[in-house]
């Protein structure tokens, strides 16, 4: 089951994801917790009108 809890600020900014429901965020009205398919950490995400929106892929790092 590739699902996880996705935590966004109420303003739509992505915060983090977690395997367990983080009660300290679920009970905080400044945040929105959504149980969803696992996000791809290669991409940015945001919350728009209550829906998780997949953004751009993070740029490749060329330095060593």
């Amino acid at each position, binding site marked *: 089951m590739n699902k996880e809890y996705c935590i966004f600020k109420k303003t739509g900014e992505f915060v*983090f994801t977690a*395997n367990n429901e983080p009660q300290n965020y679920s009970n905080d009205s400044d945040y929105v917790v959504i149980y969803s398919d696992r996000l791809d950490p290669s991409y940015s995400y945001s919350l728009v009108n209550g829906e998780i929106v997949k953004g751009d892929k*993070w740029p490749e790092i060329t*330095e060593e």
Partner: protein
Amino acid sequence: MSFQASAFIFAQGAATFNGNVTVGSAIAATNIEFNLSGVSGKAKRIQFQDGVTGQWLLGQGAASETSAFELYNATGTIVLSVNKSTNISTFNGSTTFAAKTNGNNVTLSSNGTAMEMYNTSGTVKNWQISSQVVNSQCMDFTPSTANGGTTYSTPILTIDGEQNRVGVGTGTSRPLTLFHTYSATDNLSTFQAGSSSGIQLRFRHGSTLTGYINSNTTNIFSVYNTNSTELVSVTPGGDVFHYGGTSNQGLWTYVQVGSCTGQNTFNFDVTVGDEGGGGNIFKVEAGFAHYSAMAYNCLAEFYISCRSTGYATTDVVRVDTAYGGSFTGSKSDASTLRITKNAGNYPGGGRYWIRVTKVTY
């Protein structure tokens, strides 16, 4: 010697033919009939003899002088009896329906069929194996309700042919507590109970209970010893509790796994209890990575000692970076250990994990 057709009637007595007797003459499309004309309550039978010694009787009421069709072995046993009203056939003795080769089957055909195994002692339970009689879509194995009885009401083993389940002790309900599912690519055994019920798997060596595994909605499984003391449990979220033989006195391991970016900050709160006048110490391991170069990542392994909201951190290893940020610990209140992923300044994302080993007050 020959006779004319429509020949003769012997009014009484018996006739003996010293040789074969043929009835009929193979006339095309013509039935042939051999009539034994008797009276009700007396046998209409053919007897087979060795000399003058009877061997077999075949016919209606051959031995019983009833309306049943019978095969009688002439030594005291009706081997086969077919009831004229019900068509029920009774075999007396072992019965073989076919040679021991593949493809010869015995078929019980009805809307619900059953086979009864009856012990003539009358002191033990009899058995019925039935199909579609008690549970729909199922084969049921049912003992008689009483020793020597012939009432079969509650199956003790049920095989559900529609859902591929096997139920033990599920009675007149289709199996739910235990089922086994098989496919070509998977092989699963599943124990299923009501939505809020527990499931236990118990282990005995001889007559001694050595321990058991319990599963409920709080813990996927918990291991108990012979004294019903919980030793280890695993929660649906992946937390592992190691009780060390006494509830609430063992080491418990909490984990959180997910993804974030280098710029994100968040808290992982663990309820640890108020130390009161004592102290507590926790081990924390954590890491986040966006890239192979450590400059984009962060990690930490440290111990944090606490009383109430006071704490002190002792690092085993720590790599804090400007891009990835850092992991630190604190007490957000007297009963909560807070592990914080602190923000760096690089936006790239990746996976993180945090593990906290603790004992709860």
